C-alpha cells in the first residue's frame, strides 16, 4: 500500500522531535481595571498558538482583545493566570528578564509604525539585533538588508525614516520586527493606518512569514478581509473567547 507522504501533512500530524509545536500557552488569564471602578476586562482566557500559525484576534471595540495582546506581549505584567512561550514560563519574571525575552523571541508591529525618526530605515531595522548582540555589526547590517528586501524596501535603506510614506514606514517596521527571527510576531491593528493597497501588501508579507518561515503571527485586527485570510480566528466578546 502506498502511503502518500506529504511534507506539510507530516509536519501537522507527527510531532517533530526536538521542535516544540506549541509556541504559546495562555491559561486562565484574568485582568481587572480599577479606574473608574473595578471592572473585569478579561475573564478566564485560555488558548494556545502553534508554530507557523497565522492567528487573527477579532471582536468589537472594548471586548478586551488589545488588552489580551499586551499581556501576551509580556509588556503588561498585571494579570492573574499563567503565560508560557517556547516552553518557558513567563509569568512572574522581572521586567528586565521579559525585555531580554522579547528581544530574542518576539517581534511587534503596531498600528502606528513607531520608527525612530532620527535613524535611517536600515538603522531602525538593525537596532533590536544590535541589542541582542548575537551577530557582529557587519553581519547585522547584511541581515537587515535582507529583511528590507523581504518587504521590498531595500532601495530606501539609507533614507531617514521620517522621510518615508506611511505604507513604507509600516513595511520597515515589519522588517524590524523580523530582524531577530522571532518565534512569534504580534500585531496590534497592523493595517489600521494603511490604505487598501498597502494593507494587502502587509497581509501578503504576514502570510509569507507564517507559512514559509514557520513563524507564528498573532494579530489583533478590525479588518475583516485580514481576518478572513488567516489560519484561525479567535473571536472575543466582553472579555471572553467566544470562538
Amino acid at each position, binding site marked *: 500500500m502506498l502511503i502518500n507522504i506529504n511534507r506539510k501533512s507530516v509536519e501537522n500530524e507527527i510531532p517533530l522531535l526536538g521542535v516544540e509545536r506549541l509556541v504559546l500557552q495562555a491559561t486562565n488569564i484574568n485582568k481587572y481595571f480599577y479606574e473608574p471602578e473595578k471592572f473585569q476586562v478579561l475573564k478566564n482566557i485560555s488558548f494556545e498558538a502553534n508554530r507557523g500559525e497565522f492567528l487573527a484576534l477579532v471582536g468589537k471595540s472594548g471586548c478586551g482583545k*488589545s488588552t489580551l495582546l*499586551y499581556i501576551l*506581549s509580556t*509588556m*503588561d505584567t498585571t494579570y492573574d493566570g499563567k503565560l508560557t512561550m517556547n516552553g518557558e514560563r513567563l509569568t512572574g519574571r522581572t*521586567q*528586565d528578564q521579559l*525585555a*531580554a*525575552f*522579547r*528581544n*530574542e523571541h*518576539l517581534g*511587534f508591529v*503596531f*498600528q*502606528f509604525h*513607531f*520608527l*525612530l*525618526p*532620527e*535613524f535611517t530605515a536600515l538603522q531602525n531595522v538593525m*537596532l*533590536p539585533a*544590535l*541589542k*541582542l*548582540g548575537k551577530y557582529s555589526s557587519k553581519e547585522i547590517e547584511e541581515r537587515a538588508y535582507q529583511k528590507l528586501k523581504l518587504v521590498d524596501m531595500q532601495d530606501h535603506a539609507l533614507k531617514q525614516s521620517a522621510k518615508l510614506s506611511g505604507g513604507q514606514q509600516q513595511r520597515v517596521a515589519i522588517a*524590524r520586527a523580523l530582524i531577530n527571527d522571532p518565534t512569534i510576531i504580534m500585531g*496590534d491593528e497592523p493595517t489600521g493606518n494603511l490604505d487598501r493597497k498597502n494593507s494587502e501588501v502587509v497581509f501578503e508579507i504576514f502570510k509569507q512569514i507564517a507559512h514559509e518561515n514557520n513563524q507564528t503571527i498573532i494579530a489583533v485586527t478590525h479588518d475583516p478581509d485580514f481576518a478572513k485570510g488567516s489560519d484561525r480566528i479567535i473571536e472575543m466578546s466582553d472579555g471572553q473567547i467566544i470562538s
Partner: protein
Amino acid sequence: MKLGISLQIAKTHLLTKKRQTLIAMLGVTFGIAMFIVMISVIKGVNKFLEDSALDSSPHIRIYKEITSNHPSIIEDANPSNFNIIYHQLPKNELINIKNGLQIAANIEKEPTILGVSPQISSQVFFNKGPVPFSGQIAGVDVLKEDKLYDLKKRVKSGNLESLLSTPNGILMGKVLARNLNVKVGDKITVTTPTGNLKLVKIVGIFGFGIQTVDGVKCYANMSMVQEILQKDKSFVTDIHIKMKDSQAALKYAKVLKNQYGYKTQDWAEANSAFLAGDKIRNGMVIMVSITLLVVAGFGIYNIMNMNVINKMKDIAILKATGFAGNDIVSIFLIQSIIIGILGALLGIIIGFCLSYLLSSMPFDAGDFLDIKTFPILFEPKYYGLGMIFGITTTILAGYMPARKASKIDPVAILRG
C-alpha cells in the same frame, strides 16, 4: 557591546538636535567660565596682597610690648585669694630689648634665617615750615636692612651707600618726601617725642609701593637715632627677621617668644587687615560658583526632561523591542554627560581667554598698592576643578529625567 548601542543612540540624538544640545551646553559653559575667571582673579588678588605683605614687612618682629596686663603685687601677697584689680597702669619701664644686639647675633646664626636687622625706632615729627609732619624713624645698620628687603632696588633717587658715609643722613619714603616737598640733598629738622631736635640730610628716597611704609618711614644710621633719643649704643627697640621660608616664620615666631620672653609678631598678624579679606573673598567665589552651576543644572534638568517627554514614543518602542530599563537610563544619561564634558571644556577655554584678557588690563591703585595690571593667577588645578564641577552637575541634573524615562510604561503609549 551593550553600552555601545546606548552610546550610538545617544550620539544620534545629540547630533540631530544640534541647536538644543548647544543651548544646554551653554549653561554649563557660562557657569564654568565665570567660575574660572572669578577664582583666577580672586586668588590672584589674594596672592598679590600676601606677597606685598610679605615683601615689605619682616617675617618676624621682636619688640617690647608696653602692656598693662601683668601680674600685680597683690597676687604675691594674697596668692590663695581671688583678687580683682581695676585700672592697672603700665609700668614706667624701658622699651628696649635687653641685650638686643646679642640676641640678633644669635638668631642670625640659624641656618633657616635669611637676615636679621636690629633697629631702634621711634615716632618723630618732621618740620617743614610751621607744620609738623608725623612719621617714623628707624635707626638701622643699612646693609643688614638691605639684606632683608633688597633696599638697594627700592631706592628711587640718591643711593643707599651715602647713608653709611653721612652720619646725619636719612633715607625717606617717597610719599613722605612728596608730602614734605623735599628731594635728595635737602635738609630737614626732626623732632623726637622728648623734644630733641636734629637737622638731617636726605641722601636717598625709596619706595616699597605701600602707603603705610612710603608715607611714614625713614631710615637713618643707628648711632644717630640712639644719639637723638639719648640712649646708649646697645639700645635696640626692635629686631626684624626674615627667614628663607615665609611659612616657617609663623612657627618660629612662637619659638622666639618662648626663648626670649619678648613679644613676637609674625607677618600675618602684622598685616591682618590686608589679609582679612582672604577668607571672605574665597567664600564668595564658592557661593557664586555654586549658584551658577545650580542654575546651569536646572537648565539641563529642564532640557533633559523635555527630551524625555518628546521621546516617549521612542522609549516605548525601544522597550518593546527588548531594551531594558538600564539601557534607557544610559541613553539619556550619556547625553547629559556629553553635554557636560563639552560644555565644561568650552567653559574652561573661554574662562582662560577671559582671564588672559583681564591680566593685560591696566589697573592703577594709586599710592596704596604698587600694581600695574590686574593680578590673575593661572593654575591648572582650577581648570581641573571646573571640569569636575561641570560634569558632576550634568550627571546629577541628567540622572533623574533618565530614570523617569526608564520607568515609562510602554503599553500606555503604544496603545495610543
